[in-house]
């Protein structure tokens, strides 16, 4: 595989996962809204903040409109071409990266990606109502899963396959922590008070993890909650522990695996050294912040293997 292709294939994995996870985040938010009482305040700026946007500023700049804040935020998250975090821009970035490394991906996957892109172009304009939005986002997730399924069933196990999977799981870890952050911050401000037990049925539902969460509860001796589950339960494919495990497993054959593995271990240590159920809401928020920073660093070591091309040739010749 060309050195240059590394970033494209890694980002291909990231954007595909981002598309899926953004759709899930949107559904999780909708669940949260449906679950909330009418008089409870939903903090829209906060939702945008966890996506790396300046929520307050964005909302204050919105042009006057007949739409509700919910509809405006959703259009920013789904259809807005200028929004860095929208479904639409994730899909267009996905397509750009796929086009650049098309020679590396199976043609069935290329076809699934095209069909996903066409589907979004056709359907992402209509956002009326939560019900319609729910169906649309579920379909986006489903189509993303189809791309992954096609790839899993047909792609050669190669550096490209490993990097694609690393990209997916780095992004997933990133998004799972962001989704947790929304949930924590939406319900409780960071304080020194020991946090209450989070059930979060709605978010687990959105992450497709409600049944496995109940299984987890039934097989634990200690008191656990959704935070422990999403961070540490390595048998659940959207947990941080699982994502880190997958990154490590996929990195093993890469020439710069040592640097990647070292970062993964550092992140795994963060989980081991904490007694999660004893954390205050402030500490939990801090821990999530630490994860976010760690994931950025992990991304950097993955995308910079830096082989030296112009010095000693004999040492660099590959077999």
């Amino acid at each position, binding site marked *: 595989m060309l050195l240059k292709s590394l970033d494209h294939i890694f980002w291909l994995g990231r954007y595909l996962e981002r598309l899926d996870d953004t759709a899930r985040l949107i559904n999780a938010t909708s669940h949260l809204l449906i679950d909330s009482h009418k008089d409870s305040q939903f903090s829209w700026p906060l939702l945008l903040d966890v996506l790396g946007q300046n929520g307050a500023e964005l909302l204050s700049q919105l042009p006057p409109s007949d739409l509700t804040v919910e509809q405006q935020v959703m259009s920013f998250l789904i259809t807005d071409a200028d929004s860095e975090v929208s479904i639409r821009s994730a899909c267009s970035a996905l397509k750009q990266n796929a086009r650049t490394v*098309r020679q590396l991906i199976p043609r069935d996957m290329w076809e699934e990606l095209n069909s996903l892109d066409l589907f979004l172009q056709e359907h992402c304009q209509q956002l009326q109502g939560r019900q319609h939005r729910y169906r649309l986002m579920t379909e986006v997730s489903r189509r993303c899963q189809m791309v992954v399924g096609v790839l899993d069933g047909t792609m050669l196990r190669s550096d490209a396959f490993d990097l694609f999977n690393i990209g997916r799981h780095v992004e997933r870890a990133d998004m799972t922590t962001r989704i947790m952050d929304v949930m924590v911050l939406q319900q409780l401000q960071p304080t020194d008070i020991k946090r209450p037990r989070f059930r979060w049925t709605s978010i687990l539902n959105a992450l497709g993890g409600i049944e496995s969460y109940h299984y987890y509860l039934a097989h634990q001796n200690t008191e656990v909650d959704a935070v422990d589950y999403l961070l540490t339960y390595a048998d659940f494919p959207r947990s941080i522990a699982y994502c880190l495990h997958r990154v490590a497993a996929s990195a093993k054959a890469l*020439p710069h695996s040592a640097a990647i593995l070292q970062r993964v271990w550092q992140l795994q240590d963060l989980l081991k050294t904490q007694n999660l159920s004893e954390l205050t809401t402030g500490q939990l928020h801090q821990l999530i912040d630490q994860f976010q920073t760690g994931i950025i660093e992990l991304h950097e070591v993955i995308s910079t293997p830096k082989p030296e*091309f112009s010095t000693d040739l004999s040492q660099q010749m590959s077999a």
Partner: protein
Amino acid sequence: MGAKSFGHYQQISQCFDELVQADGQIRPPAAAIARFIDRHGSAELIQRQEQLNQTISAMGVCFTLYSDGNNIDRCWPLDVMPRTIPSSEWQKTSAGLKQRLAALNLFIDDLYHDQRILKDGKVPADLVLDSRNYLAPCKGISPRYGVWANICGTDLVRDGSGKFLVLEDNLRVPSGVSYMLENRTVMKRVFPELFADSFIYPVDDYPHQLWRMLASLSPRPGDVPCIVLLTPGVYNSAYFEHSFLAQQMGVELAENTDLLVQDDIVYLKTLHGLQRVDVIYRRVDDIFIDPQAFRPDSVLGIPGLIKAWAKGNVSIANAPGSGVADDKVIYAYVPEIINYYLGEQPLIDNVPTYLCLDPKQREYVLANLGQLVVKPANESGGYGILIGPRSTKEEQQQMAEAIKANPRNFIAQPTLALSTAPTLCDGVLEPRHLDLRPFILQGRDLYCTTGGLSRVALKKGSLVVNSSQGGGSKDTWIINDEV
């Protein structure tokens, strides 16, 4: 088979129609498609065209336009009606195409070595040596098997009687083969019943044949060759094809910055370090591939590549310098070239050609601009052509001046009654003109595609088939008629 199959289909008189005989009978190879229309009616045909368009966009079969803002990819235009050719006819055509490429390669090799043909006065020496495609630095170099043009796309047309003629040879970086392959994939999905109904020769072994040919060029024959496809990049009009072929062959798709030359050896920058490259299938024009050898301002080139190639450390397909035979003036001499090197008569004729270089022929051309097609010797993509009967007096005047200023740069041909085929236009089958580009490979062996890419002028009466100028395409079926 009655004429009812294609409804009120009106042939153009004087033109050979690929599917319908002059008496209105359906040609035997088109029997299956005619039966289909008889059985299902034209509404079904229209629906299949719609299904076909959707399939193309879902498959992402596209071509790239340079000046189109962000939306650079356009869906590939494919007409639902196939073009059919009987296999017995294709056998002869394919033999003629191989004959032609073999002779052209002997010619190019001779030009860069002894120049016997020039000394014997069969081709005027200044014609070759003054050509901008004759690359003097290539003199004395011997590519493997003496073959310079490894991949050739020859454009064929039929005259009024239906006889195939060679319109031009593309020996530099001919494109279109990926669309030939994709057209077939799409048609199989849209018309599965037609494929069950007749014996249509498959086309999908091309990527493997291309790989085999490239592998046969490796300078390290014992080892598994490292082959790369060199592309100018994602904004090139043929990028779809480059990535398609790289993917289908399982080779790396590289840009110049992915390669480097050290001690006259070419290396690829891989994730695991440098890997030695044996064969480069380049889709970059030759004068751009090495700024040290040709254009110093090239940003697409790899410094030192030509030296590595001259030393035999890497093979380049097509070899730099092979474009010397891809000159429309040289084209006029190809029958002579075949005769000179092979001692054979050409199996496929040229279109009659007037050389503006020759004072007598020039005089004729200048006097008959309104009836002739005039072409510059070294353009591609249908640019700079004057189609006499469709041109204005002013355009003819401009062309006359251009010819007088540089007669060597122009040839002229009679306007042919290009063959037509029924094509779905606004829901109705109408005749449209078309050509055919088969692809011929030469390395250790010679190979010719089963059929090729049929390009069709979608505008009524138009003779321009290039996709960049609004042309479409048809799947080309070589139908077994020898059982």
